[in-house]
């Protein structure tokens, strides 16, 4: 059987991390192809529901990345986002959600190398964690109590 290839969704801000990923590309840095980048105007736009939606649609890991604090194009978007993530993270942790699968990071437009490293690291980590079946299995278990075994695919 071939090796498990995780699907990773990256929610990135237009001004820093997207440009950083661009730099990684133009400087021909090689990094894992598992990542699907979604560009947002600002980290402040990244609603927690989008993360839920990504997991709902079968992503195994999530990267959220934006400008370093004090570098936001809109002055304070990432500060607001940071607070929201702190709250969101502690909530899902309280609910027993696997927070290992969500990686938060600051990557500036000049940090193409950091972006490549980040993607590689996260891909390795999620590959070790395996497919994210906990969330998908929720419905199977509740619908089919007799089927005690988890459906993994």
């Amino acid at each position, binding site marked *: 059987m071939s090796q498990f290839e995780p699907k990773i969704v990256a929610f990135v801000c237009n001004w820093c991390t997207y440009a950083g990923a661009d730099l990684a590309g133009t400087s021909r840095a090689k990094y894992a192809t598992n990542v699907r980048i979604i560009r947002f105007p600002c980290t402040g736009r990244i609603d927690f529901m989008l993360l839920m939606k990504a997991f709902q649609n079968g992503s195994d890991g999530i990267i959220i990345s934006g400008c370093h604090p004090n570098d936001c194009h809109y002055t304070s978007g990432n500060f607001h986002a940071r607070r929201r993530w702190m709250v969101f993270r502690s909530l899902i942790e309280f609910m027993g959600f696997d927070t290992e699968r969500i990686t*938060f990071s600051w990557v500036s437009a000049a940090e193409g190398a950091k972006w490549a490293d980040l993607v590689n690291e996260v891909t390795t980590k999620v590959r070790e964690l395996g497919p994210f079946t906990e969330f998908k299995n929720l419905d199977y278990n509740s619908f089919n109590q007799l089927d005690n075994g988890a459906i993994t695919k």
Partner: protein
Amino acid sequence: MEQLQNKVAELFEKGTISLMIGFQDGMSKGAVPCFVESVEQVKLLIYNSYCKNNLAVYLHKPEVKQAKKVGIFGNVATLRSILQLLSENQFWNIELTVMTINANQEFILFESIAEVEKYVQANFPQLTDEEKELIEKINTMSRQERWEYWKDLFSTCIKCYACRAVCPMCYCPQCTVESNQPQWIKVSAQTSGNMEWHTMRAMHLAGRCINCGECGRICPVGIPVHLLTAKMNLDLSKEFGSKTGYSASNGYALNSFNPNDKEGFIR
């Protein structure tokens, strides 16, 4: 009780209020919310230990807002909701007259919102021991156990949205859960959709919930949903010093920021 009725009658005669939200005798034992519109109905008003509902939830109803001058009776939790809602600019078009009965069973009619603030601040409620214990119990579980714990609870959720209907802070005319383009949350009551719904509810109430515990009390299948928001409140007060329903000029923790916020998970 008579004091309450007399005072309300007086307010009606003076024209200070045109609608009073209070409690009346319910079926068998208990109390149900009642809306008094004239002096004749004032006799209905009662107060006893069953008067636990958070009546602030009715203040958003268009019928109530039409009355313009509204009197409301409630416990500390209700007063807190009123303060929090005032800080969210929800009552710009109605005049509120607030009354309560304190721990010594004395009737209090507040002259101004500043007095309500003073009363709430002097009697600021804490989480009950039961709630604290449960949160502590969940906190000490392993991640897997926590997941199983909530999974079992959420699998019973029937998505009746009673927790939303009873919450004075849930006043959006259209809730995200009803949005179908995009469909954020699955419509059917499946565990995954239920979990998303409760996550969303807790997030939207983080820093706004006033811990009245109505959502947990009302839940027909007994899910302690109030624990999620209670936990959020504990975190928010610890990290950002937010105190919901403490004054009518409270900020909202997630609507503001501090450049020095400390977090240990962003690389």
